[in-house]
């Protein structure tokens, strides 16, 4: 496996389970833990890997925080297009993701807050007034079913064989 292929494979495994550990990665890819650790350090250093986080079932975690998707229409600029506005939005602590998307609006922004009012107020008083933002539409998230490839609910067990030829 070339270095580049190995890097891709390591990223693939970390994206599925960031807690997998260097020795399991090494075993899966028939490499050694030192090489894997070095590649991960390199990718963390050069910004290929931005960070790690846990996917959580908010209900079970007792996480009462409110999340909303905000569609933002932006007037693009002569230099840089949507970048300045996207970065300005992304600096707020309340904002957890910002994507430029195709379609009826331009930026898809995910915002968290303690209450509906707090999120609504944030959109009205901090996000909408940003120079270049033309319109926003707020969608509060009511329930999470799947995130990053993982279903929130577990499949039911059924009568599967424990051993078979």
């Amino acid at each position, binding site marked *: 496996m070339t270095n580049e292929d190995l890097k891709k494979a390591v990223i693939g495994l970390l994206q599925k389970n960031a807690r997998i550990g260097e020795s399991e990665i090494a075993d899966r*890819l028939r490499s050694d833990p030192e090489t894997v650790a070095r590649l991960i350090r390199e990718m963390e250093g050069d910004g290929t890997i931005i960070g790690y986080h846990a996917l959580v079932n908010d209900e079970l975690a007792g996480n009462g925080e409110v999340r909303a998707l905000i569609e933002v229409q932006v007037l693009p600029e002569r230099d840089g297009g949507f970048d300045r506005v996207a970065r300005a939005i992304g600096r707020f602590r309340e904002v957890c993701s910002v994507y430029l998307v195709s379609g009826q609006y331009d930026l898809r922004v995910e915002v968290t807050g303690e209450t509906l009012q707090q999120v609504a107020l944030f959109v009205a008083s901090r996000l909408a007034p940003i120079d270049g933002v033309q319109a926003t539409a707020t969608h509060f998230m009511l329930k999470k079913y799947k995130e990053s490839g993982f279903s929130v609910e577990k499949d039911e067990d059924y009568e599967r064989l424990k051993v*078979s030829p």
Partner: protein
Amino acid sequence: MSDSKSRPDRNWVAKHIAGLPRSGIRDFFELVNSRDGVISLGIGEPDFVTPWGIREATIYALDKGHTSYTSNLGLLSLRRECCRYVGREFGVDYDPVGECIITVGVSEGLDLIMRAILDPGDEVIYHEPSYVSYAPSVAMTHAIPVAVTTEAENGFAVRAEDVEKRITPRTKALLLNYPNNPTGGNLSHAQKAALARLAVERDLLVITDEIYSELTYGERTQSIAAFPGMRERTVFLHGFSKAFAMTGYRIGYACGPRPLIEAMMKVHQYSMLCACGFAQEAALEALRNGARDREAMRGEYEQRRNVIVRRLNGMGLSCNLPEGAFYVFPRIAATGLSAQEFAMGLLEHKNVAVVPGTAFGAAGEGHVRCAYAASMADIETAMSRMREFIDEL
């Protein structure tokens, strides 16, 4: 009263069925299934659920009311897709109209070809360790299964010279299964070529069960059916269970020369009629749109294989890196235990299930089969408990 004629001790079972060995592992299987909390590396099927796109196609077929019989041979659309797939992936072209039949899994395909070709007393050569139903499927037709032993040192590949030694005037067919259950062994191009030459020279029919073929790690060679002179003397058996995680759908297919497919069709039509129609539609979806899911599963199996082989060798059990399927077949003889003792001990003391190699024929003594179609967490737990078990011996 005619009661006087009744004999309460009368044995109604046919002699050739009574004579079949009771699957050596049935007691073991029942023991495993009766225990709670077993970590099992004993399952001969994917741990993945059938990909949703395929399940959704099944539901859609039901939604449309496609619940009738299909043609005895199976849906023509599916046969077309199967033949296209076999042409593209295995290098042999078949006519979907007369050279392909949809079966209820490879198991039925195997039964059909045996019943179609064997007269009482005919002999079929197969290699051991092997899947449990090969010898019985021959014996059930009053024919004689002849086992050729394969060795770990040779990657469990069957050698043409060993087959040749067992050929008699009654030998009709050679049954191959590569990639192999239970060993994970595979055949190289050269090994297939040697077997193909032998088959042509000695006028043998070759039945090739390639159910694990998509689960090949490293280079995948063409089917033995694609070698010179082989198309007319090979019956190619394949199905959807392993590559697409569709074991419960029970859909397989056979491709081969027209007269043989026609003969298999006769048996199938009178015994099975047809394979389940909406399951056939699901299989069609698998061939049309299932490649990405198939490859994702294959990639995951390959990595699990790498892990389990390292762990086994790390605890002193010699185990080569198998080239296909989702099984490893480590040698446990160094522990001083027989295959059965090892598997029973591991189950009793550590609640881990592996299958004794002898379940797959006498040639499996000294080995156990570990399936890595299990979650990595289960594999890791099973491996550390197995290590404890060995250390405590």
